[in-house]
């Protein structure tokens, strides 16, 4: 639950605008990956689900102060719902590993990101009625997202070293 709040706090940081494209690259979607890789599949996904539920209830927790059910019904709603799967997938992979080092975390977060696109792109395609076009559009976000996967993995690896035996599969903890 505190991690849901953590994702919310990530939303406080304003998006970084790249060039003049008008698409903000937000830090917030690093949150689900972090939640998955640190808390494990069940708790990670639950944290993300809670965060999304609070957003849907109308609390302005999404970056840019967005709130309500609007963001979910919009063209990028699939990417929001995909966050849950993202945390789930990343958490599952991390839990499988004996000792989650950087390679494992990179793989887990990359898979998590792919899971998000797996829901987000068809959703967008459903909106526009053209799946290939949706895929092309989503490519704009790929470089930023890949950078986030790398950064999240580095940070998660540092945290596994800072808190040995306390994260993900190894211990009971309250999310």
């Amino acid at each position, binding site marked *: *639950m*505190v*991690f*849901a*709040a*953590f994702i*919310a*706090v990530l939303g*406080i940081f304003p998006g970084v605008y790249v060039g003049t494209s*008008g*698409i903000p690259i937000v830090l917030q979607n690093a949150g689900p990956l*972090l939640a998955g890789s*640190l808390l494990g599949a069940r708790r990670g996904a639950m944290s993300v689900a*809670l*965060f999304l539920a*609070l957003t849907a*209830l*109308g*609390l*302005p*927790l999404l970056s*840019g102060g*967005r*709130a*309500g*059910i*609007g963001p*979910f*019904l*919009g*063209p990028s709603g699939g990417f929001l719902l995909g966050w849950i799967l993202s945390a789930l997938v990343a958490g599952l992979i991390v839990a499988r590993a004996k000792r989650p080092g950087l390679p494992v975390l990179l793989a887990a977060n990359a898979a998590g990101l792919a899971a998000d696109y797996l829901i987000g792109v068809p959703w967008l395609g*459903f*909106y*526009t*009625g*053209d799946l290939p*076009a949706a895929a*092309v*559009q989503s490519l704009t976000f790929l470089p930023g997202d890949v950078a986030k996967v790398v*950064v999240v993995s*580095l*940070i998660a690896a*540092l*945290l596994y070293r*800072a*808190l040995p035996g*306390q*994260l993900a599969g190894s211990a*009971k*903890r*309250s*999310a």
Partner: protein
Amino acid sequence: MTGWYEPGTSPLHRIPAGWKFLAVLALAALVFALRSPVWLGGVCAAVLLGYAVARVTPRRCLQLARMLGMLVLLVFAMQWWLLGAGQALVVCLRIVAALAAANLFTVTTRVEDLVFAVERGLRPFTRLGVRPDRVGLLIGLTLQAVAALSMISAEVREAAKARGAERSIPAFAVPFLVRTLRHADELGEALAARGEGDG
């Protein structure tokens, strides 16, 4: 923290939250079924009429319009380039109708009413182990945690700056996450001490 809710006494404010939510979902589904720009334009007009009925303040309308406008412009440009103007228009009208309706819902529905509606909606699932009475507690605790973490984040940033490491992402993220997790542990212990257990 305040949401988008605007107090009012219009019919739209008075519809029970659960029904209103279902209505918005039905409208979103309808919008996807429609392919003719004329009909879609009609739905958009109806939703905009809803804003007038609910007497949403001009300031809020402007804020919502600006948000929606940016998105629509971007989507329109992209769709035009990829699929042509006709399809782009249909897609954008869909977005306007669905999002304007969803935002109208958020503006005219109190968060408390919505929480109550969720609690009631979950009641049939009690037998499956769902505990609807926990919804309020969960929301309250999360909001409190948002405040606590905002403070921690400010402190950690200050500390990183003092070490001359304000540009380093790990110098901020790692201590922030360590303290976040510690906060989660403390909260978990506090809940366990009060017999609320794990979960």
